[in-house]
């Protein structure tokens, strides 16, 4: 494996050159000729009836071009949901409409009501202040338990309640009851998985444009998946056929899930641009982002573990309330079900696992995937539960895990997935090497002398990535396929362009994807250009999320490149008057096996486009191939994480002293980028555990609506991390043997932090503290210790 280039090398990122010099081109950097600006007037109440909207004064304000309300969107489709979950009775989930602008009612603080389009952004903002809304405030539904109680106010009047679905998955009642009836010990844990705001640093932006000449619409948007937006918005909202709609997601400043979904503002700008025949731009403020970007997590769970007298796991039973918010965001119903329930076996050979999820509508911002998406929720509850169980039965938490590890692969879990490969002992061994567990007591003693309580938390995780086999997700309710595509276009002079449906918004695809193709052909990486993010330039693709880009998008790219190489070998065989089967490609040179005959890559590509001496009766000229790749299974990255903390017993403040992550991502293309992905995930997971929380009051007012109130992790909250991905069990079913690394850090880290804090308190004599809900703020920790 080369270390200076190609697969396995920490090639420096080519995209950095533009980002480091201010030459990145993000959506807000795009300004079109004649562009107008929209400002959205949003609901400031969580739930209300719209009795009147008076725009008459606002219409007279300087620069106002047109003011749109919900009435302008009658006949236009609503924002669609991409996944239909079937409930335990076999009925489809309740799927209420989601209008572009509110119609009749507002359902969360931030629900857009009016779009004011003006010549400048400032004029649009000023005019919006002159719009008079008559909104009758209604009782808000905020708490999920109260939302399901009889007599609760309803978020959607046309539904029979606030339940979206009641879903059961995994082992049947008889199997799970038997497991618990045989148990020598049952551990129960109630917990919440706190609601988070993804907070990509680039706020969302949309610029709609319309060509009167060609009747084509173009949307520039901050998206992780421009084709998905084109499909959803074109087919379901605005009725624009895909060949008349182009969606461009240029440089995108982080996503973390929040830029997967089709949002109302995108549809608005595209719609208004056509109505007004001029470009319409919207740039979100951060304050708007907090009340309009989909949130993540927000589960309330009770989970139980049954063990026999030898501490073998017999059964896991979990009941979760999952907040959907006011409307169903694009992938929302799938997150607590198929991205959560399917992972509830964890790394363990538990014979019976049953998952119940009740999804609930509330008068809050819609909730959807956020980095990890369902898998952090599964990992957190299971790994907290095992830690609690270990304490209850006096077992070592590492030994208890090892005892119950799955060690034979493939392994079919009771929750419908089959792990193809893994070695959980290997990552645990690596982790223990990294953290000096034996030295912990001495460190704890030093902390004690300094008046601090030190704790160590260890856990495992597994995730299902490489999303996803289309046939499987289709059975599970997905309304889309989850393949990926790539076109490889080789130019006459040998350089090539890969057009991928994956989208890079921080992941460094322009570098790592080029490494793969260059390696396959044996040419320098700088001969390979990666193009993404424009539906006009790339084949139909499903975008980037679920740690799928390399596993699925990379596989498509490999398949397309294989087709290129196969054709190039035919051309080379002709040029050298040899048999195709004797042609070998190495270091960009085609040679005839057993001879000294060879032609260079560039000779072959030139021949493909200048076919003077070319087998035209056998193959077409040109060298361009497309491949679509649909995986036949998920990939299953796994690992073991450890966190060491100090708790100040005087204040309850938690300081992370060290964090170590030992991951098995399968094969690695660019170790530098992989480490960076893990670092970022860890920061988000540690942020969830200690700092971040979306807080609503009982009236549905968002209390954490700015960076003054929502505690983003900052540099001085976090340590240097130790990360390792040298434990490798290659994925068995994709051509690169890769598993995906984007979400692991965020999935594996929250339980390590909480386990560490509980450990610190237990060791410090606070035996009554067996759990604290995230985020573990000083107030919560101090209250747990002293209350």
């Amino acid at each position, binding site marked *: 494996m080369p270390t200076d280039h190609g697969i396995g090398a920490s090639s420096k990122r080519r995209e950095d050159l533009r980002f*480091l010099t201010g030459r990145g081109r993000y959506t807000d*950097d795009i300004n079109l000729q004649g562009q107008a600006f929209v400002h959205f007037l949003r609901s400031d109440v969580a739930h209300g009836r719209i009795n009147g909207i008076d725009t008459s004064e606002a219409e007279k304000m300087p620069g106002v071009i047109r003011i749109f309300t919900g009435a302008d969107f009658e006949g236009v489709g609503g924002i669609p949901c991409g996944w239909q979950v079937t409930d335990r009775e076999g009925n489809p989930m309740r799927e209420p409409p989601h209008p572009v602008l509110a119609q009749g009612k507002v359902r969360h603080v931030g629900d857009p009501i009016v779009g004011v389009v003006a010549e400048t952004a400032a004029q649009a903002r000023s005019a919006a202040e002159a719009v008079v809304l008559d909104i009758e405030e209604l009782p808000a539904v905020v708490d999920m338990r109260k939302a399901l109680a009889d007599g609760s106010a309803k978020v959607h009047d046309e539904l029979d309640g606030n339940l979206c679905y009641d879903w059961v998955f995994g082992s049947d009642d008889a199997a799970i009851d038997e497991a618990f009836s045989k148990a020598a010990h049952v551990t129960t844990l109630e917990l919440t998985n706190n609601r988070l705001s993804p907070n990509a*640093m680039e706020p969302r932006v949309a610029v709609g444009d319309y060509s009167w000449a060609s009747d084509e619409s173009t949307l520039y948007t901050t998206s992780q998946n421009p084709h998905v937006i084109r499909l959803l918005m074109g087919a379901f909202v605005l009725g624009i056929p895909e060949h008349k709609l182009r969606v461009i997601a240029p440089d995108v400043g982080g996503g973390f899930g929040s830029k997967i979904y089709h949002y109302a503002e995108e549809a608005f700008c595209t719609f208004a641009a056509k109505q007004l025949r001029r470009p319409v731009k919207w740039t979100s403020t*951060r304050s708007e982002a907090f009340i309009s970007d989909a949130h993540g997590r927000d589960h309330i769970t009770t989970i139980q573990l049954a063990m026999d007298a030898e501490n073998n796991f017999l059964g896991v039973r979990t009941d979760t309330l999952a907040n959907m918010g006011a409307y169903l965001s694009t992938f929302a119903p799938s997150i607590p079900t198929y991205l959560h329930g399917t992972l509830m076996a964890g790394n363990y050979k538990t014979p019976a696992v049953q998952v119940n999820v009740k999804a609930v509508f509330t008068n809050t911002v819609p909730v959807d995937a956020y980095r990890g998406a369902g898998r952090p929720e599964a990992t957190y509850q299971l790994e907290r539960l095992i830690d609690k169980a270990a304490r209850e039965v006096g077992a070592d938490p590492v030994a208890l895990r090892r005892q119950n590890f799955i060690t034979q692969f493939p392994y079919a879990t009771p929750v419908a997935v089959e792990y193809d490969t893994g070695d959980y002992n290997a990552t645990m061994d690596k982790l223990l090497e990294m953290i000096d567990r034996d030295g912990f007591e001495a460190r704890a003693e030093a902390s004690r002398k300094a008046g601090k309580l030190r704790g160590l938390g260890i856990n495992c995780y597994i995730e299902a990535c490489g999303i996803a086999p289309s046939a499987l997700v289709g059975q599970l309710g997905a309304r889309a396929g989850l393949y990926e595509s790539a076109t490889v276009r080789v130019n006459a002079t040998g350089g090539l362009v890969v057009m991928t449906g994956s989208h890079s918004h921080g992941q460094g695809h322009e570098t790592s994807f080029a490494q793969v193709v260059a390696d396959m052909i044996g040419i320098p990486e700088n001969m390979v250009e990666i193009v993404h993010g424009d539906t006009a330039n790339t084949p139909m693709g499903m975008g980037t999320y679920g740690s799928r880009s390399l596993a699925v998008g990379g596989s498509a790219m490999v398949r397309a490149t294989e087709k290129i190489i196969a054709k190039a070998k035919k051309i080379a065989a002709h040029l050298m008057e040899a048999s195709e089967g004797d042609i070998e490609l190495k270091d960009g040179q085609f040679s005839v096996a057993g001879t000294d005959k060879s032609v260079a890559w560039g000779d072959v590509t030139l021949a493909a486009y200048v076919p003077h001496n070319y087998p035209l009766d056998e193959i077409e000229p040109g060298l361009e191939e497309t491949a679509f790749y649909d995986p036949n299974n998920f990939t299953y990255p796994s690992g073991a994480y450890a966190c060491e903390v100090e708790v100040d017993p005087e204040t309850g403040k938690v300081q992370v002293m060290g964090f170590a992550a030992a991951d098995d991502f399968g094969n690695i293309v660019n170790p530098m*980028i992989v480490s*960076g992905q893990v670092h970022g995930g860890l920061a*988000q997971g540690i942020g969830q555990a200690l700092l971040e929380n979306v807080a609503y009051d009982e009236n549905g007012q968002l209390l954490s609506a700015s960076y003054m109130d929502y505690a983003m*992790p900052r*540099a001085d909250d976090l340590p240097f*991390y130790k990360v390792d991905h040298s434990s490798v069990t290659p994925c068995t079913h994709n051509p690169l043997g890769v598993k995906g690394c984007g979400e692991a850090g965020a999935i594996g880290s929250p339980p390590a932090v909480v386990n560490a804090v509980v450990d610190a308190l237990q060791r410090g004599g606070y035996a009554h503290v067996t759990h604290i809900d995230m985020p573990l703020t000083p107030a919560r920790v101090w209250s747990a210790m002293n209350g």
Partner: protein
Amino acid sequence: MTQVTMTVNGKPVSGDVEGRTLLAEFLREGLRLTGTHVGCDTSQCGACVVHVNGTAIKSCTALAADLDGAEVVTIEGMANPDGSLSTIQQAFQDHHGLQCGFCTPGMVMSAAALLKENPKPSEHEIREYLEGNICRCTGYHNIVKAIMAASGQDVSAIAAE
């Protein structure tokens, strides 16, 4: 409207601004220097950090009209005169101190200001100094490492690539 004249990245510029026009808006919309980013509206995230008269400030919190005559340096003015990356920029690339790139201009500008006043900052000093710059991608590990490396410190003992 008020006319302001500034020196931005060594070049004299002028433009008409409203009283409410922020420096960030003047740079981005007036001068089309879109490397300066706006990531929040409460002066917290630091994506908009530029140097004004040699001091790092948040350009979302300064009124353009107040800065008549100021010397402003933005991310577009940070590369070496021959266009190659400056020491700090190169360290960010070498140590993978950026991912999506959105916070990066502010990080580089803050890092430059830090190293000017403290040429060999400790890890702790770097982390404290970056309190006003939020990054969501990197977990700060490689940003802190890059700044230490840019200051000439040996970072080979710090874990990971």
